[in-house]
């Protein structure tokens, strides 16, 4: 496809067709402050931090909602643009708790990044804080309304990506807040706890319980739960999983995960986790090797088949296995055991 040339503050940049000014500029390594922009979502134009001047356009359009056209002349660093962004940021900061050191998003926060870029110093404004108690109803994540900047990324990801629409904006103006239908706690809503909203929150308004520490290294892996094969990035610290993220670059899931993958990996370091097969001997479960265990199972199957016929054996396979594994399993039951009794948990 043709590349489109345009300039930002005099510097020539190329954009792909259909790209917004913000996308093309960020891709070129030039930062324009933004909070409500999210590559996975439709442009929103809510935070107004990406306002720019564009020759031939009235007022200050937002870079996120304006598509690049050939020869477009964009200015991102004029005094007027800076002033509007800075005041907008000051207003956001005046309404935001200043407890960054104890925030779970410390140093990974888009608000911090944009505030630092714009040089927001001691606020001249009247400080305020919303008097809404945290929604602690979900076992995996918490919503802290005081840190919410109403960028609506959580709302949009729930509706545009997950197709669920469990949350939306309620009330108006300064009173507005993100809420499930009828103001219910999130746990009593249709929310499926996929955590996608948490992943897309630019501040610490949505955070995973107990995930405050920074990972030491990141490991890419495939989710062990089902056959879809979502790729995930695990944050590891001291050989424990401290953070789970979907891999944005992986075509299968494009960064999405479900409740199991995102919040169900704590078994990996559980004290109760089985690491070897156990065989019951004299009423006691005793650790065994895989060879011992498989030999035992094979011999017992043979015994049953000989004594009662293959039809006495039934197989129930799992969605945790891949399609190929499920195919092999039904082959084993039908051809190996000689039984028609095969079923799958997804059918129940």
């Amino acid at each position: 496809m043709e590349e489109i040339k345009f300039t930002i503050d005099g510097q020539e940049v190329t954009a792909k067709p259909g790209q917004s000014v913000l996308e093309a500029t960020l891709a070129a390594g030039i930062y324009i402050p933004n909070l409500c922009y999210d590559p996975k979502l439709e442009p929103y134009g809510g935070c107004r931090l990406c306002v720019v001047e564009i020759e031939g356009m009235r007022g200050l359009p937002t870079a996120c909602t304006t598509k690049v056209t050939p020869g477009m002349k964009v200015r991102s660093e004029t005094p007027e643009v800076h002033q509007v962004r800075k005041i907008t940021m000051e207003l956001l900061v005046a309404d935001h708790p200043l407890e960054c050191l104890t925030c779970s998003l410390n140093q990974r926060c888009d608000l911090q990044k944009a505030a630092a870029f714009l040089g927001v110093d001691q606020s001249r404004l009247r400080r305020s804080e919303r008097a809404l108690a945290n929604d602690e109803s979900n076992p995996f994540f918490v919503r802290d309304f005081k840190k919410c900047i109403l960028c609506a990324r959580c709302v949009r990801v729930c509706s545009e990506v997950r197709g669920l629409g469990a949350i939306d904006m309620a009330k108006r103006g300064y009173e507005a807040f993100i809420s499930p239908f009828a103001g219910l706690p999130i746990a009593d809503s249709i929310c499926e706890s996929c955590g996608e909203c948490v992943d897309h929150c630019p501040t610490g308004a949505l955070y995973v319980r107990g995930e405050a520490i920074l990972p030491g290294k990141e490991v890419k892996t495939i989710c062990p739960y089902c056959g879809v094969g979502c790729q995930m990035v695990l944050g590891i610290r001291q050989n424990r999983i401290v953070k789970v993220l979907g891999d944005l670059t992986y075509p299968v899931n494009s960064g999405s995960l479900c409740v199991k993958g995102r919040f169900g990996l704590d078994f990996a370091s559980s004290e109760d986790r089985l690491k070897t097969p156990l065989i019951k001997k004299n009423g006691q479960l005793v650790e065994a090797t895989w060879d011992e265990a498989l030999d035992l199972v094979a011999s017992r199957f043979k015994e049953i088949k000989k004594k009662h016929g293959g039809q006495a054996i039934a197989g129930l396979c799992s969605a945790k296995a891949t399609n190929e594994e499920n195919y092999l399993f039904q082959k084993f039951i039908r051809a190996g055991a000689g039984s028609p009794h095969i079923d799958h948990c997804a059918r129940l």
Partner: protein
Amino acid sequence: MRFEQLQARAKKAWQEVVSPQIPLIRMGMATCGRAAGGQELLQAFQEELAKNKIQAQFSEVGCLGLCYAEPMAEIILPGRPGVLFAKLTPAKMKKIGEDYLVHGKIVGDSALAVMGPARNGTPAFTDLPMVKGQQRTALRNCGIIDPTNLDHYLAHDGYVGLKRALSLSPDEVIAEVKTSGLRGRGGAGFPTGQKWEFCRKATGTPKYLICNADEGDPGAFMDRSVLESDPHSVLEGMALAAYAIGAEHGYIYCRAEYPLALERLDLAIRQATEHNLLGDNILGSGFNLHLKIKMGAGAFVCGEETALMASIEGRRGMPRTRPPFPANQGLFGKPTTINNVETLANLPPILAKGGAWYAGFGTEKSKGTKTFALAGKVDRTGLIEVPMGITLKEIVFDIGGGSPIGKKIKAVQTGGPSGGCIPAELFDLPVDYERLAAVGSIMGSGGMVVLDENTCMVDVARYFLEFTKNESCGKCAPCRLGTRQMHEILTDICAGRGRPGDIELLEEIGAAVRKGSLCALGGTAPNPVLTTIQHYRHEYEQHIQDQRCFAGVCKALITYSINAETCNGCRVCATNCPQQAISGEKKKPHVIDTALCIKCGICYEMCKFDAVVRQ
């Protein structure tokens, strides 16, 4: 029935109104008339007449726009022009029944006007000071016809414009509207003909027409009056617009707080459909139009076109960035035209009489007439329609009659909460879109609040900001947080907590909110603050530096005391003080204990000797 037959029937029906066989009493029954007690009056009057066996017939009309004179009734005796009686009370109504209905006499100055030539000292309606300078176009039938009677509308050239339009091509209709110079009356003033042309040329089907009847400015009631008093003019306007842009489906987005307007619209749609003025194959032309009413749920921001469309689609009413403009991607992603009620009501006469006729009124860039809801500290409040280019002075003093209590008029706020304050020194300003914008205000939908010397401009700014702050949808940060921040600062200033630098801060935030907001709500919300700072900076400074509010409005900044020289110790203030803060012996000067005083101002209002001093 053919259109000509309909017209003949209508003429006959109207003839029965203007020359009735038995006395006809026509009561103003728009929401304004009802709120003023019209319904109760009418009922009492009917009972009274029945008791005395006086024969009479009754009907309802809409709003004439003379709010100050409500409740009103027009009485038409056989063979005489109608006479308008105003500020009616049950006693007054009973007396009129005897004097005028039975004896045909107008006693004293009980009558306001004659709906014809002046007679026996009662002026002609058109010569009333409030009516004289007006040019009623959108309001042409309001208060004249019975809004529930299609014949009445037809008898006043109703649907003549549509009939003519259907004999023209859509492009010719657009050309006629372009000639008229009509601009959107919802506030932004975009040329109507051009808006239609964009939509007509846009690709995509179906196309939609929307009537924006989500009138939300506090104190503005132009659209409500038209919808309640003359709903068919809006429907005819919609039919014209839909024909021009090529739409077969239309929505009327009307706020649910207008129950009477909704009821009358619904009836009018049924009447028009029944008589082939709406529906399929309108007047045999092959043109179809189906209208639906959509009720708004009380959000001011839904008057903004993109928020309005989101609301019709069933989503949260929040604006989105334009482009794409509705003409290309509007309702359900299809080409859409949105016109305001008043714009639509202007169209039938434009099509019937020609665009050049309409363009004969107004100024070079702002043609035609504009309605204004005249309110505040003015003698004759009400709804007026004047040619563009009229001066503010003419509106406030000639039509409105200036201050009712002899106070000095200080300023006028145009354009509602999105508008600005224009000081009295600029009252020679001709009213049109460009000139109002040049002084920092806007035409808006036509709110006009008159302020007198007892109005504190900081308090006015705070009042309007409170409205916009509460009505901000919350989507964009500058509007959501900026209006709140400015409101906080203004509240502080009014409460005596203003800080040095607050004025500059208000200017800075105001400018950022104006430039940075997503839609026109935020884009115009700072106007009341910025214009009052521009013209009344000294009042802000007095509040902050001197801790004084000379208008006597901001309680924290005023004190009451008693001038011992003029106080004669009548004890009226002391007896009426709710806090017992005033002490003193009879016939000796009294004293106010400022620690107990809650600054309610009762003593100030009650003292007949001007001995109570407010500072």
